[in-house]
């Protein structure tokens, strides 16, 4: 649901948080144009590049997906067998057969480190720990991109998060705008539950009633002016109006406009919460929607997928849940990659699949695996990366990285690079006016193995 001017929590600055989270991200105002052009020119990018980030809420089991430990004792090894992939020498879990068959298009990180160990989307959305944030807070990746690059054509927002409302709100976090400014918050069509696109009672069908819409926008403008929270509102207003009155966004989110056979190939899925019921659904429709959004001009699409916090019985063992989730992920991600490729979009679209941490090597007494921030895994595809490889390794028990530890920020550095943003030059000011680099570029750079 796209809600404008709806009831929301009044923040200490007098601005309704919800108002700007729901329609923020539509804007480009407030950016230094020279900064944008400088960053893009430095990377030599002209085309619309994009990122689809699939957040596996809860922490996927690295050792049961991409780094099986067959030499470990049974209490660590688990139930699954490895299978060979299209790339000689690389093996992954037997429940990911389609990924295995397209391994030449994928890159696996087996040595993801630097997790703050928190059950939250925060680090996967921002690249930073939640503690000790700068003034205004860290912007999420999508918000930074939205501020730096703006919209592609004025008809779609630059940043969309598809996650629905969840009991576990820390997993539903769509990514905060932080010091990028509320105008760069993600557009969150599902935040109030999957369903209709409604603008505070104005359905998309009635958007032709420009006067009504302008009335809503004017009200928002008055409130924003009163607080001084948004600069350049006129520019923002124009662009918001352009997006809201364009059919591109609504069309992209309307999966009934898609070929049902393709929707079947993605796997559709259930809209009900997966697993324990406190996280998002295992809904492959989201992946199709992500492709449609990117195709329509969105730069960054993020979404929470499934419920990967598998502590064991009575909510099923780690392996019961893996047999449930992995085939769905396998189908959805592989179809997404095939679909992007068939449309000529794969080289311009980076796909990232990851979670907030890995899971304990030792299987607990309930058949589960617990939280393991020491090491995790990630999957990358598209965006022009050199695929068909594994980066990093862990020890025999999957406890820690032994080769090429890859920090979360190196993944973000790679994504920024793929979008044509030079992390060594682009900055955003925090609310104290201090320029902030997008990642700690003195320590972390794009993965040279991929770029």
């Amino acid at each position, binding site marked *: 649901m796209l809600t404008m001017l709806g009831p929301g929590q009044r923040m200490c600055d007098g601005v309704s948080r919800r108002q700007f989270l729901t329609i923020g991200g539509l804007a480009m105002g407030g950016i230094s144009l020279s900064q944008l052009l400088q960053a893009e020119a430095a990377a030599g990018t002209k085309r619309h590049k994009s990122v689809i980030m699939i957040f596996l809420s809860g922490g996927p089991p690295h050792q049961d997906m991409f780094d099986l430990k067959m030499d470990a004792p049974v209490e660590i090894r688990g139930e699954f067998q490895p299978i060979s992939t299209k790339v000689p020498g690389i093996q992954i879990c037997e429940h990911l057969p389609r990924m295995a068959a397209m391994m030449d298009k994928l890159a696996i990180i087996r040595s993801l480190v630097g997790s703050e160990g928190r059950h939250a989307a925060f680090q996967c959305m921002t690249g930073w720990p939640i503690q000790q944030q700068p003034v205004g807070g860290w912007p999420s990746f999508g918000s930074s991109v939205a501020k730096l690059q703006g919209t592609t054509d004025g008809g779609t927002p630059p940043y969309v998060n598809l996650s629905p409302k969840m009991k576990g709100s820390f997993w539903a976090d769509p990514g905060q705008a932080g010091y990028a400014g509320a105008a760069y918050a993600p557009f969150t069509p599902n935040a109030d539950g999957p369903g209709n696109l409604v603008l505070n009672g104005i359905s998309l069908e009635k958007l032709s009633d420009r006067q009504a819409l302008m009335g809503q926008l004017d009200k928002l403008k008055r409130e924003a002016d009163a607080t001084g929270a948004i600069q350049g509102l006129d520019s923002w207003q124009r662009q918001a109006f352009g997006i809201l009155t364009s059919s591109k966004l609504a069309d992209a989110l309307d999966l009934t406009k898609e070929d049902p056979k393709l929707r079947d190939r993605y796997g559709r899925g*259930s809209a009900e919460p*997966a697993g324990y*019921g406190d996280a998002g659904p295992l809904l492959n429709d989201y992946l199709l929607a992500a492709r449609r959004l990117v195709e329509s001009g969105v730069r960054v699409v993020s979404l929470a997928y499934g419920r990967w916090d598998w502590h064991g*019985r*009575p909510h*099923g063992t780690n392996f*019961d849940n893996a*047999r449930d989730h992995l085939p769905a992920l396998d189908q959805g991600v592989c179809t997404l990659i095939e679909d992007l490729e068939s449309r000529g979009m794969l080289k311009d679209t980076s796909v990232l699949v990851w979670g907030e941490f890995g899971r304990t090597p030792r299987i607990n007494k309930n058949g589960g695996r617990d939280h393991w921030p020491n090491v995790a895994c990630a999957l990358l595809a598209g965006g022009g990366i050199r695929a068909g490889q594994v980066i990093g390794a862990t020890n025999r028990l999957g406890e820690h990285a032994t080769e090429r530890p890859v920090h979360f920020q190196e993944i973000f550095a790679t994504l920024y690079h793929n979008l044509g943003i030079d992390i060594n030059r682009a900055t955003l000011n925090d609310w104290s006016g201090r320029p902030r680099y997008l990642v700690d570029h003195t320590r972390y750079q794009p993965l040279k193995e991929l770029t």
Partner: protein
Amino acid sequence: MLTAKLLHTLTHPNSAYGAAFSPDGALLATVSMDNTVKLWNAATGEEKARLKGHGDGVCGVAFSSDGKRLFSASLDKTVKIWNVNSGSAEATLGGHQQYIESFAISADGKWLATGGHDNEVRLWSDNGSPAGVLKGHTEAIYGVAISAEGKYVASAGNDNQLLLWDFAAAKKIAELKGHSGPPQCVSFHPDGKLLASGGSDAKVKIWNLPAGDLQTTLDGHSQLVKCVLYSPRGKYLASGSVDGSVRLYDARIGTHLLTLEGHKNTVYGLAFTADDRLLATAGYDRTIKVWELGKKQ
């Protein structure tokens, strides 16, 4: 030769934990980690109702002997009693301090048992009155069963104990030793003279009662046996496993009769109709399969 024809594949939006047929076989109740109970027309596979009210996954289900009420046990630590006609919850039974994971009803429908992660077995009459608490396990109870007339209770725990209890006295009678690793599930033969158990060792074991001596061990599953169930007429013993298969045995002599393939994940629950004709199998793959059993000459 025993045969099975797949009649229906029914679905929940989350993993299915259990199933039960109404006494007349007309309704099938299924339960899921989606926190709901679904009622189906067993003949057509049409969904009749979805009962909502539990706050966590629903792990067990049974009809009352007259078919008018339904009992559901949940990870939310409660048992609910539902009016089948209205679909409303008439009572909620509490007492467990941790998750309930296992549930059983006696063949005469008079007694209920629940096993929890609080290491306790709780007993109830069919009107919801507490009928005792069995303490002796030191870890979560994965499987529980009550013999036909409520004479015995059996419980399987993650503490590796497979215990036989005297219901009336609420006293442990015997510990049945033979499985390697934790036993997972138990079922009494309707005549009360046999107990079947499934284990994490992928074995099904048959025990003589009341002595508790091991009669036989049935191999065949390749992974942990999650559920076992004798058919109401006592002809069959069914077992479901992490390997996704359901195996059917001659209940008396343990001969393997048939293997049902089709689930893509662990089989968590089993249910027969009163005439032993239909078998429902509930899987973590979010499906419940209804099989018609028959004989081929």
